[in-house]
């Protein structure tokens, strides 16, 4: 019983803290391992990529200070 209470005390404060990054799943547990910078808690790659509109480069780091949703896709 004491173990359960201890566990509950440890877990309860974390329940509402969505910002705590989860530990990445080990590579063997994944269908498609993500490269460095794509796992929770890692810094997203700051590589500058050319705009598909005018070719001018832009980095996700240019958005620092704002939350960003990054959608990586192919049009096919």
């Amino acid at each position: 019983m004491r173990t359960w209470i201890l566990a509950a005390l440890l877990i309860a404060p974390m329940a509402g803290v969505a910002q705590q990054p989860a530990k990445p799943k080990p590579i063997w547990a994944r269908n498609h391992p993500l490269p460095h910078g794509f796992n929770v808690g890692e810094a997203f790659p700051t590589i500058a990529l050319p705009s598909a509109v005018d070719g001018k480069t832009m980095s996700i780091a240019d958005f620092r200070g704002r939350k960003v949703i990054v959608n990586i896709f192919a049009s096919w």
Partner: protein
Amino acid sequence: MDVPVWHAAVQQLEQAGKVAVVGIVQDQHPDRARLFMQWKKVDWPLLADSLDLLNVETVPLTLAVDEYGIVRFTELPMAASKTIEQTFISQTYPKPAAPPPIERGRYESFHNWTDAIAMFEQDVKRDPNDGAAHFHLGSAYRKRYDSPERKPTDFVDAERHWTRALDLDPNRYVWRRRLQQYGPRPAEPYAFFDWIRDARKDIVARGDTPTPLAVEPGDSEFDTPDPRAAAAKKPATEPDPRGRIRRDRGEFVEVETATVPVAPSPGDTVRVHLTFRPNTRTKAHWNNSVDPLVYWMNPPAGVTVGERAVAAPNADTEVSQETRTVEFDAKVPVSARGRVSIPGYALYYVCEDVNGVCMYRRHDITITIPLGAATR
């Protein structure tokens, strides 16, 4: 693709300045993604990683990155778009002790595709077994092929390096699709770009002009081949068996050939690509008020092709200067060794400049398929 779903879910939050949304497209030809975004009325900044320097194995991938550049959610499913405001946007994240360093990487370190090719050649030389280096190099070759810097061998070089990349790491879905995009057509063709036809129709119907594409998708990029090409008038019998039509040796139309894969095994089916470019030096134009360009082939015994003639449809204007392509599959006999040649010729109507002299010309084209090992 999950782009429209995410767009619908976060558009208001984005407009309210609560979050930014950025699309990163992995296409070889990112203007096709621009057309898609125009069609779906999505106005996100759209970045292109045609060379896959981000090193992603598969797509789509949606991630949430906090204001400090740290990934907070990865591989977000579409359903997460409904709760993203609570789970991510309204959350407070701890400021890291030091901001993550910014490395702007290699797209900014070259200014043309020739420089890029030289850079990635060095990577391949350093480690010939680095699949990513081969993919980067292959994609850079194809980029140059589609640019004014182009060399006629660039497409074949692209394929060669893409093939090597996939041999080294066969799990890379994006790489696999890149190669498949150019054929041969599998038994169950993949609808890479069939959506483009609907997109253009819808965009025109709402009174807009569709985003122009630098390179039109070829037949191997459609599940349903272009109905206009299928309907284009083709001869049932050999149109110039005695070779009487005057030859064009590139004065009016320059021709390139490529086969996919580059070095098939005996017994394989290959996709043959023929590209016809009006010569800008002679101001050559296609004459669109007559029969379309036709390629007639005389395959040797044992080589199987669908039809002996393939056609490229005319443009809608009276004359035009666009690049035309025809594609077809050819099955190489199991007994073949060394190389297989398919002789043939194209027939087309061209004019010297707008309102200039028009003529009918034949261009002899022999397709050579170098064969690889008898067994893979």
